[in-house]
Each structure stands twice: as C-alpha cells, then as structure tokens.
C-alpha cells in the first residue's frame, strides 16, 4: 500500500491534501509492536482493528489472547482482553460467550496454539457452533519459542526441531485444519486468506469482516485463517518470506472461502439430527 503525499506545486491535485487515505484506527494502540521486522501479525492486527472499528464493535468486544507470538495482542488492541492458557482460547471464549450474550467475542490464535495443543478446543467450539469469531494466523512455525516445527509446517521445511526438513514418515503431514473444521455443521463461515500482497490483504479483510458479521447476525462459529510469514523462523529475508508465502505455502493451503452457510442457515450435512441450536441466535 503506497501513500501519496501531495507535493507543493502539484497543480493536478490541489484538493487531494484534504482527502485522508490512511489513518490509524483508534482501537489500535499507539505503540510499536514486539513483532520481528517483516512479520505478518501486524497486518492482521491492523485489519482486525479496521473491521472492529467499521462495525462499531470495540466498546463491547471481549477478546481472548493466545500463547505464542500474539500473546501480547492486548498491548496493541484497545479492547477488553483475557489471556488463555496455550490452546484453550476457544474454551475461554465459550465461557465468555455463554455468560455475556451481548458481547462480541473474538479469539486470536497461531497455528501451534490452534492446530496442535488446542485441537480439541477448536474442534469442539466449532462443533457446538459457538457464536464466536476466530482469527487463526498460520505461519507454519512456532515463532515465539525459536522456530520449531508446527503442525502446519510444510513437508521438507527446515525448522529448529526438524533440522533436516519435515519428513512425513517421521513427522506426519501438515494439517489443513480450516478445511477440517468446515465439515462441521456448527461452522457458519470458514475462509483462508493471506497477507502476501495488497490484493490478498484486501480479500483477507473482507473475510475477517464477514466472520465478524456472522457473529453479529447470530450465526455460528466463524473462522478466518490468515496465511502469514515468519522471516526469522523461516530463515529468510522479509521479501523472500513473502515470495515463499505466495508460492509453496499458498499451494499447500489454497485460498478462498471454504464454507459460508449464511448467518442462520441450517447445516448442509445430513447428520440425522436437528440443526445445532445456537444459544443466543
């Protein structure tokens, strides 16, 4: 995204100086982040801040922070936050959801948190159709602890705990957890986007917005997976990491809306039982 700054004497755009094209949403706190240079978390934070602001949500949002690089998310987003134990954010959010029907409930998790240690919690929150919005940042690595292999690490990818590359015979295969979750009738919306380029960022924002609207409209579980990068963990420059993200990562994790069952649409899967009742729907 480039910012055009009108220059004196630019006769072609005399009034453009008054047109604001970029501003920090109020909900984004005015401080620099602890994220490494080139990290995608900042982009996702900003998109989230924009969407929360556009939908007028910050004053009644209760968010759940994960364990992982985004553990300090509450330092950047000016909304009420509770810190969850590693992987438990969807359970914590469930508790909030049920006692605070009026709140907007948001979780923010990384791939180690959501797709490894917290697999049971995310699956069952989705199965219950909890009316929460889950943001899932997938950069295929444990960044916070020094770049170890994650459940989403690509085959062949070198990490500090797969020094010779991820070997399927020994370490299994990457998990496409968003596709897995999309099978569940409790999931109203599941989509995967990426921060890899400007066009993708715009699409990712639309996905996040949709996932928030689902909750506002009384739908079930909504999840957006954001494919992101980890230049430090991947051992690349930020630019190389973006190229890697656009290439093999996106190839392994296809982009797009995986399911959108509408806000209150009944499940498409015939499970021989009634549609899940959303407690506050």
């Amino acid at each position: 995204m480039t910012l055009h700054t009108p220059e004196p004497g630019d006769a072609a755009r005399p009034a453009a100086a008054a047109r604001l094209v970029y501003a920090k949403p109020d909900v984004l706190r005015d401080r620099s982040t602890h994220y490494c240079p080139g990290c995608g978390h900042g982009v996702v934070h900003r998109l989230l801040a924009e969407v929360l602001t556009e939908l007028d949500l910050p004053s009644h949002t209760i968010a759940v922070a994960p364990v992982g690089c985004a553990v300090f998310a509450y330092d950047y987003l000016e909304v009420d936050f509770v810190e969850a134990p590693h992987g438990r954010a969807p359970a914590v959010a469930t508790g909030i959801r049920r006692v605070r029907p009026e709140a907007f409930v948001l979780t923010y998790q990384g791939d180690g948190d959501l797709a490894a240690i917290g697999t049971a919690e995310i699956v069952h929150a989705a199965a219950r159709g909890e009316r929460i919005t889950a943001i899932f940042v997938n950069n295929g690595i444990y960044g916070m602890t020094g770049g170890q292999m994650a459940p989403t690490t690509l085959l062949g990818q070198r990490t500090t705990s797969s020094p010779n590359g991820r070997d399927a015979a020994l370490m299994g295969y990457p998990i496409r957890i968003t596709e897995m979750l999309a099978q569940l009738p409790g999931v109203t919306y599941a989509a995967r986007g990426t921060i890899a380029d400007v066009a993708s960022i715009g699409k990712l924002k639309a996905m996040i917005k949709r996932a928030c609207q689902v909750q506002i409209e009384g739908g079930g579980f909504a999840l957006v997976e954001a494919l992101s990068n980890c230049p430090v963990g991947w051992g690349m420059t930020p630019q190389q990491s973006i190229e890697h993200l656009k290439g093999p990562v996106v190839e392994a994790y296809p982009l797009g809306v995986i399911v959108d069952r509408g806000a209150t649409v009944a499940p498409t899967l015939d499970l021989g039982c009634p549609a899940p009742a959303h407690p506050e729907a």
Partner: protein
Amino acid sequence: MTSRGRPEVTPAPTTAEADAARRARVLMKGNEAIAEAAIHAGCDAYFGYPITPQAELLEWMARRMPELGRVFIQAESELAAINMALGAAATGARVMVSSSSPGISLMAEAMSYMAGSGTPMVLVNIMRAGPGLGGIGPSQSDYFQATKGHGHGDYRVPVLAPASIGEAMELMADAFELAERYRTPVMLVADGILGQAMEPVELRFRTPERHTFDWALTGASGRPARIIKSIDLDPEVLERRNLDLQHKYREITRREVRWESWQLEDADYAIVAYGTAARVARSAITAARERGIKVGLFRPITLWPFPERELARLSRHLDGILTVELSSGQMVEDVRLAVEGRCPVAFHGRMGGLVPTPDEVVGALKALKGKVDRARPPEHRDHTPPVTHWRESEDRAEAEPWAHERARRGGRR
C-alpha cells in the same frame, strides 16, 4: 471489601419447632446437594465433564441450570471445562467446575492461570483413589495436590473440606464468597463417599452478596480496556505480582482458617482427621473413651490455610496425636510441621478406596498410647488440660450437628 458474610442469628427455636424442623429435613445425595447449594449461592455458569464418582453433580446441573436460564456446558474435556470457567469468570460471572481426581489433574493448568490472574472460581473435587486412573473408591490422596500442588508457580488456593453433606452445602456458599473476596480459585474437596452418600439436610441456603468488579471484562465502553492475564516477562514486575499474591495468601491465612474440635477439653490424645476420616475418627473416639482413653477430635475444615497455630497450641497439652487419612499420609506432614515435635505424631491410613474402620483407628490409638506410656509413664507427665479459650463457636453451628463445636479464626483475635 466484602462483608464477612456471617450467617444471620435467628432466635433459638423451641424444642417442638426444632423437632419439626428435624423431621422435615430432606434426604439428599452429596453430589446433588453440593450442586443445589452452588445454584442457591448464585452460580451463574457450570462447566463439567463426566467422571465417577462426581457424575451426579454434572447431571444435576445439566437439569437445573437451563431450567433457571443459567449456563451449563458439558465440555469436551476437563481442560476445556475449566477454561470455559476461566472465560466466564473473567467477565465477573460466578462460576464453578467439578470433577474427580484425574480430571483435577487436567484442570491444574488453568488453576495456575486463574490464581496468577486473580480470577475467582469454585472447583469441587470428589476425590477417588489414585495414582493414575486408580479406582473409583473414596480417597483423600489428593491432599498434596489440593494444598500444595496442582499447577505450576508460587500460588495457593483455599481448600475447604466438609465432613457431612450438610456442611458441604454450607461451605459452597463460603467458597464462592472466598473466591470473590480474594479473587482466587477455591477448592472444595470431599471423598467419593460424601459424593455418593445421602444424608438428611435442611434446605437452608445462603447467597453471598453480589459485587460489581472493577476488573471484570464487560467491553471497554467509556473506560480504558481491561486485561486479565498472568504473563509478565519483566522479572521485576513479575516479582511484584508474586509479592502481591503472597500478601493475599497471608491475609487468607490470618482470617480464613476454619476447624472443628470435639471432646478435646480433657483429652490426652487427639485424632487429627478431615472429611470422611473425621467421621470414622468420631466413632473411634467414642469407642476409645469407653475403654478409658481420653481422646478428642481436631478436624481441619480449611486444609489450606491449615489451622497450624491452633494445632500447635493444642499439642502442648497432649501426650500424642494420631492422624487418620484415606491416604498414605499426606496431611500428617502438615500436622508434624505444626506440632514441631511437641508430642509424638502417629499415622493411620488406608489407600486404594478403602476406609479405615473405627476398630482399626482405636487399635492405632492404643499402639500410640502404648509407645507413649513406655517412653514416659503417665505419672511423670504434666496433666494440664488443654486451654479452650481459643475456640470460638459459630452461631450457625447450633442447627448443624456436625459443626456444633466448630470454630473459625476470624478478625476478632
């Protein structure tokens, strides 16, 4: 700060009224009585997972909570259950979880987070025999876990141990009150017998006063955002957080110790026991007194904070102490720490789901007495009766037979 929440004192009932009340008592199963007491205490949300021998508690909540428009979730695991509780409690709701020993191990992680972040919650452990999957029989082998263990880090949680179903009901209200007053998880531990048995109870309930919490997450509307967390990567800051916690624990230790004493006025020996073991001890004490052994009961009601000062004071006037537990001997370590060698401390316990019989306990008592007598004949001993001024009877104890000599260390010292 909250009020002490002392029970209201009602005029003493007439004999006829008392008798009528006695006959009107209701037969309730421990698990169900605990659940109902929690409901009356204002529990907004319950999260659980089935495990024997506490399943009836979950089932009771499954029926009652939705009836009352409150929250019940059968979670996918104990891990999820307690984290749901964490989330709900973070918004200021009055929350509870329950499980039995193996499930409590799974809940340990979140206990640590909740203690660290100051999130109130009540946790009930209907203890079964371990280690591992163990068995479903009654046990007190989670004493270490409850009072010193569960999660990581420098923290404590108040632990309440009822010896009857009626007392368990009373303590549920206290548990919620303590949790909110001190912003801490509070545990109530009972062995499987108390969960499974039925006893007559009076349907007298107490709802602790509701407070608006200046820390609860309700949405940052017209105020700065609030954060409930336990992380602090700056060691200086984290040490301050820990010092605050320790200050809180000192305050709890100063104000919230509870215990019961029975037949200690003229006692040469005391049995120290809690929960079901204390009931066995009572039967044993009656039998031992018939055989001329002057023995009484010291029953900790708070396992943490342990009534160590009271026991220390008592031990100066005793020839010996027998600790009885449904374990290999866990609380006995705290007994010995409190007694500091002032008198011999013996132990008798059963494991694996077995319960010591009164006869066994009398046998252990006689063995202790034999040792003491051989070491120091009775005529050489100072027979000062134990001082009794430290006992403070509770007003509410009148109506509850188990608690008639129960005392609680209050701010009145």
